[in-house]
């Protein structure tokens, strides 16, 4: 296997792992406090579950990039030769979602946690909590878009 291919795959791997770690931490953080709220008031399960699920999307974005990359370098069909330079390019293109996914999921988890605490005190505020939490995700979406456009644009 060429070095280029290895670099490209490493990029995809990092996108999955880092964004995934972020989501795991974020969802777990929110989930722990959500469980506490549900213990007090089981009727709030729906709204806190929604909040808990939000930091989970970054992991999916990471996986998405990995699959787009796999399609690009032909891992799913006939392999394509990737030069070292192209490998580095693809590796770099994976970084936005890898790093932003990691950080934004953790911080989104923290925001979700605060929003869950808010819903625990005042049930009618779940929509507002949702909006605050989604604000954090914007930057993961932008990173995802940047990664997609870059991978798409790199000539192989």
């Amino acid at each position: 296997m060429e070095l280029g291919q290895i670099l490209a795959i490493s990029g995809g791997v990092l996108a999955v792992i880092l964004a995934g770690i972020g989501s795991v931490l974020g969802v777990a953080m929110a989930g722990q406090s959500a469980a506490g709220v549900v213990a007090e008031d089981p009727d709030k399960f729906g709204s806190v579950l929604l909040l808990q699920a939000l930091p989970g999307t970054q992991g999916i974005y990471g996986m998405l990039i990995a699959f787009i990359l796999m399609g690009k370098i032909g891992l799913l069909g006939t392999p394509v030769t990737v030069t070292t330079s192209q490998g580095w390019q693809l590796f770099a293109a994976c970084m936005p979602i890898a790093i932003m996914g990691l950080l934004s999921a953790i911080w989104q988890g923290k925001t979700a946690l605060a929003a869950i605490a808010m819903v625990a005190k005042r049930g009618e505020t779940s929509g507002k909590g949702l909006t605050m939490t989604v604000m954090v995700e914007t930057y993961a979406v932008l990173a995802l878009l940047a990664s997609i456009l870059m991978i798409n644009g790199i000539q192989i």
Partner: protein
Amino acid sequence: MAVISMKKVTLIGMQRERERIIKSIQSMGNLEISQITDDKAEGDEPEALILDGDIDTLEAIQSQLSEIEFTLGLLDQYNPKKKGMFDTKPKVSVRELYKALDSRDEILKISKECNRLDGKLSELALEKNKLINTIEKMEPWVKLDIPLDEISDTSTTRAFAGTANKGGAQKLIETIRDIEGDLAQIWELGDIGEDTCFFVIYHRSAEKEIQEILKEFIFSKSSFSGFSGTPYEIILNARKQLDRIDKSREDTAQRLAEFAGMRPKLELLYDGLLIEQDRQAAILNLKKTHHTFALTGWIPAREAEAFTRKLQGEFEELYIDLRDPAPEEEFPVELDNPAVITPFEMVTNLYSSPNPRELDPNTIMAPFYALFFGFMMGDAGYGLIMALGTYFFLNKMSPKGDTKKLIGVIFYGSIFTFIWGAIFGGWFGNAGELFGISPLWFSPSEEPIKMLVVCFALGIIHVFAGIGVKAYINIREGRILDAVFDQGFWYVFYTGLILWLAGGMAGLGSAYSQTGKIMTIAGAAGLVLTQGRDKKNIFSKFFSGLLSLYDVTGFLSDILSYSRLFALALTTGVIGTVINQLGAMAGGTWYGWILAALILIGGHTFNIAINILGAFVHTSRLQYIEFYGKFYEGGGKLFKPLGLKTKYMDISK
């Protein structure tokens, strides 16, 4: 499509008819009883109005409610109700609910009995634990065949049981046996964890020697106070009692389970009490004199006439006054929208309900919502499945309240999901492509930049609509100049900017960018001249006008925010494609195809679910931040009339 106008009701009636009047109001279900705030009467009248109702009645009902709820929980635990997929709530009449209240003592007795049985079950569980502990404690000592309560010293000997570390056990035994003259005896019995159990007996003359040895081996005495008989007997006895307890527990649980037949009665009473609770809570807002009571509340204006007529027909000694809200008076908000728009009220209410004096934004928001939701889902196949699923759910399960609205939102969203899916060629991921269905317009993954431009264009339309609504509000309230300065100039400025930039980039020709440039400059000039018009001093007028141009960054970030449309649409498509690829990898043999079918069904269901969540929250955000940010105030209180609210039953009309 508007906030319904309300009338304020003031009603004065006789104390002795109070219950009946409030019941009648409750069954009409269109009056929200409010606290009496107009306290003029208190100072003027010799007989001051005092608060009506009493908190004790309400608290008693609440404790009965929680008692029944607890019992129903118990019944679910010991005799779970089999639930069908399409169970609907049983229908009852109001009369039956009130009748249930008459037999409340009888039904509460059942509830008490169930709760007593549950108490007994926990007692038995406690006792069982104790016995298990006893058995565990006695097991190491089972070789000791002396009744524990008979272990005692005599005038010449001493006897006791105890433990010492296992490691030194052998040595300890030897040391004691080595004492001259057979003055002491030791038996090894069993092990407790790291320790070994011993029984020691010795002659008092060896006391000092023995004590030293025991100290050396860190021997600790065990005490068996409270036990009688040999350990073996104790264990045997405990086992017997355990059997008895298990049987008793079974019996009790069985008896509890048999009460499951009373569930409908309990649920009926629960709902009856719920209605009574609401009524008692409402009565707390009333005020009274010796013989009369006063009530104020809000009623939708169009129902006020019928309301008055009905009450005056039923009761003779009754005074009702209706008036419009005062100019600054807040009143509860009830929205009136056509059936297509109603579900979207939920989206707005999640953010903040409109306040009584503003435009109901739902009509203008709904089409954008469905459009963007569909764009983010963006898969024709998924759209079909969602439409069928939600349609089926709405018709078969007849959901109520916010659930109904949420499903409605997804239903309308699914129509656009289908349309956008067909436009961009998404059919179950790439399945459409594989079967040769080409997109009606273009494929986003092949022309991502074009797709991004489409998203920005949609965003510009949305944001412009938001500014337009603000302009409309200004004009409606007679602030025409504000509309021209604050919205009109921005329109000119933004449109010019877009033509200028886009014209240059897309190479549409210099005519576009030239027009754009002129519009931008004209708009900017207008803004600089007018945005500081609140300021007194000419310099601060100019500078705040100039600073206002900085808002253009807000506009840019608003528009860029619509790139999420593309990102989420792509997410759906790529995950769908991945699922198809996984399915294709699994296929080949007959069991492979079964596996493939499972992967496809499970995978696409997952993809739909996760993307509905994503589309819902991100579309909501676009409405809340980018759209409502331009004109919407919110902060209204929803209209919550006193009505017949139930949990387990549906009330038949």
